[in-house]
């Protein structure tokens, strides 16, 4: 599959990129929910186009010791409220140890759709520390 076939007048490899946006945060944010919901500050609504999405963060979970086995924390990219299934990442927490999470994927948006990082966990309280969401336009739709 090629995202660039429909945009023959655009060089997807040109530098600097056609469009670039970044959301970043350093203040801790926590969740005790098993429902996917927005990771604080991790949302960008770019102009119409095909975008490379890059996300990374450090995160931990409070309760992964003996109480109920290891707790899982999940992250995923959502576009217009719909999960990009292959973007889901997870880690198994042990006693508040920090883990690195990274996601990358390509998505197409229509100009009104938000690109978001959402997260949840299946036990304990998960904390996300420093985090960055970057989107780079690769081609027109």
């Amino acid at each position, binding site marked *: 599959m090629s995202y660039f076939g429909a945009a023959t007048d655009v060089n997807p490899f040109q530098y600097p990129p056609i469009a670039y946006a970044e959301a970043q945060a350093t*203040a*801790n*944010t*926590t*969740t*005790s*929910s*098993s*429902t996917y*919901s*927005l990771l*604080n*500050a991790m949302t960008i609504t770019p102009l119409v186009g095909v975008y490379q999405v890059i996300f990374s963060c450090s995160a931990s979970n*409070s*309760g992964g*010791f*003996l*109480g*109920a*086995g290891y707790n899982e924390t999940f992250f995923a990219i959502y576009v217009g409220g719909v999960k990009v299934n292959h973007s889901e990442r997870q880690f198994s927490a042990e*006693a*508040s140890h920090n883990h690195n999470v990274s996601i990358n994927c390509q998505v197409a948006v229509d100009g009104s759709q938000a690109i978001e990082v959402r997260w949840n966990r299946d036990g*304990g*309280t998960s904390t996300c520390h420093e985090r960055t969401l970057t989107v780079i336009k690769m081609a027109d739709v």
Partner: protein
Amino acid sequence: MNLQWKAYRINLEDLEAWLTQNHPKTDGINASIDSFIIVEIEPLTDDEKNQIIAYYDSMPEYTDTVSRSEKLTSALLNYKGELLLKDITTYSILDKKVLLSLPITKDEEDQIIVDYYTA
């Protein structure tokens, strides 16, 4: 459902436990420096929201600076340290669970905190 942070610390674990027991339409809390959200898996009625707000408003200041999970982590380390000194043939079931990192109950966690946590 959005709430406003209080000017003082509260025990979020208590609030979460109360929500779990009393409001099955909710699913945990998302908390950030600039937002405090009760996650709804089904829309809450105004009456249910008012119950949550009333409970939230009644919560006292939480003065304990060490969280339960931090206490448990510390207590488990102390517990395992003592296990090293014990004769393995005298281990209790709980000793063996802790040694093998098998699941334990909340009551057992509480007892470990009481017995092995030192501030």
